[in-house]
């Protein structure tokens, strides 16, 4: 058991980090906004923390704190104009922000441009990742049923109507945008000190799409859905590799194919995400039940 745990330690760390990233996207989804700026915030957090520990020899907790706070501070002036946009326009504007951040790091000599920073001290341990994830889940869980939680739900369902009953929707949207940025920055810092390196290529458009897919596959109707999605999608390739080895298949493109097929099946049959699985099973059973004879 311990052996097994040690073998998969990094898998568990990545599940936690990806869970944080999925929650960072959920923050904006929870008030109905599709923002794709989170890879950019993750890059800011990762670089800020790595520079602090690598160049300034700062203590790791301080580096984590800075990596959490700085993206949130950047998010506020960015969010105020950008969150006035809706739907696809917001998505495009935030993709633009992500690309600007990535290109800035590509062209910054101090951080070795496209090569990025290497030999970052390994300071992240598994428990830190999971405590960070647990805290994020706790905060989002306590928001449910609170005055703020109801306000977010109202904004998500009908923003103009929410404003008519006195909810300052822009404040809430910007606050959740900044909270999401903080989580992405923290995840970036934890990952940088786990993999020893940061490079701009790790924070491109593909990365934010991954985060969004975690949230969608897990289900964004409830706060823990995105974490389920992240865990499922992070563990799936490993599970398939194990399964392939067990039946004697050589690792290869087949695994990617199966991975994609499972993803597609989840999206087709569970459009509300993995969190809706119990509900889907119940409905399927109801349908299979023999009908009572009439009269």
């Amino acid at each position, binding site marked *: 058991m311990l052996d097994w745990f040690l073998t998969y330690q990094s898998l568990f760390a990545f599940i936690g980090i990806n869970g944080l990233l999925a929650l960072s996207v959920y923050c904006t989804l929870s008030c109905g906004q599709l923002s794709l700026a989170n890879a950019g915030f993750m890059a800011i957090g990762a670089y800020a923390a790595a520079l602090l520990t690598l160049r300034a020899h700062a203590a790791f907790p301080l580096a984590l704190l800075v990596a959490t706070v700085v993206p949130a501070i950047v998010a506020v002036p960015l969010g105020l104009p950008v969150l006035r946009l809706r739907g696809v326009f917001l998505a495009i504007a935030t993709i633009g922000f992500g690309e600007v951040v990535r290109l800035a790091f590509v062209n910054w000599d101090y951080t070795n441009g496209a090569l990025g920073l290497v030999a970052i001290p390994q300071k992240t341990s598994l428990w830190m990742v999971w405590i960070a994830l647990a805290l994020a889940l706790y905060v989002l869980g306590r*928001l449910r049923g609170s*005055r*703020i939680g109801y306000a977010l*739900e*109202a904004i998500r369902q009908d923003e103009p109507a929410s404003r008519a009953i006195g*909810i300052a929707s822009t404040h809430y949207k910007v606050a959740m945008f900044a909270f999401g940025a903080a989580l992405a920055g923290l995840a970036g810092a934890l990952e940088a000190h786990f993999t020893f390196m940061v490079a701009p290529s790790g924070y491109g458009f593909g990365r934010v799409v991954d985060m969004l897919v975690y949230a969608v596959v897990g289900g964004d109707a409830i706060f823990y859905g995105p974490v389920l999605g992240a865990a499922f999608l992070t563990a799936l390739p490993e599970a398939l590799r194990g399964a392939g080895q067990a039946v004697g298949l050589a690792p290869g493109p087949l695994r990617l194919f199966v991975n994609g097929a499972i993803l597609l099946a989840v999206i087709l049959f569970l459009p509300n995400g993995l969190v809706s699985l119990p509900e889907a099973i119940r409905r399927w059973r109801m349908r299979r039940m023999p009908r009572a004879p009439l009269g």
Partner: protein
Amino acid sequence: MLLSVERLVRAFGGVRAVDGVTFAVGEGEVHGLIGPNGAGKTTLLNLVSGMLEPSEGIIWFRGERIDGRAPHRVAARGVTRTFQNIRLFAGLSAAANVIVGEHLSRRSMLWQRLLLLPKSRTEYEQALDNALRLLDRVGLRDRAFHRASSLSYGEQRRVEIARALAASPRILLLDEPTAGMNRNEVASVEKLIRQLADAGHSVLLVEHNVRLVMEVSNRVTVLNFGKVIADGEPKEVARDPEVIAAYLGTGE
């Protein structure tokens, strides 16, 4: 005067949907706003509630100018509304819709909630109690935990009124509360508006059902093509030749 509107204009391109409208609503008054289709009634309500900015003119509310303010600021001053095409939060229960409406009257308990302080729990129970009391008032106590989208049309309307009341507004704007209702539903809304009036609420009522407006209002303003054609007590207004012409046509 609680609410007064002075020479209000709202133009959409070349069309002046509201064209120099002046009227006032007193404290504790039910003020009816009627007029044929396209007279500018809903536009006027949108201007007062801040959902639209006026092109010209002033809106005073309790001695303060509220024209051009964002809707949530207008709501915070004590103006809440319902919508012609009901806009409930469909995925939430009736009670949750009303709790959302309490946003302005509740304080944020986030820190207490994060620290699991018992105070936050009683705060939530108070919010729920209050929501249930309001639902009781509109006759929907037994439907409190049904999804808003599963309620009948008339019930949804009444939930929307309860949600607007939850903010403890100084004036309630009702945009065609009986639109698309059957007779029983109209009767229940009529009863509700009378109860609100008896309880001393100020109401600005936009309505197609002229009989209902004439019966429940203290004062009526009639609009046609964006302009006020009559303003006064229901009895005077009903006799006004211009009003009769606007509703029935002139026969020429």
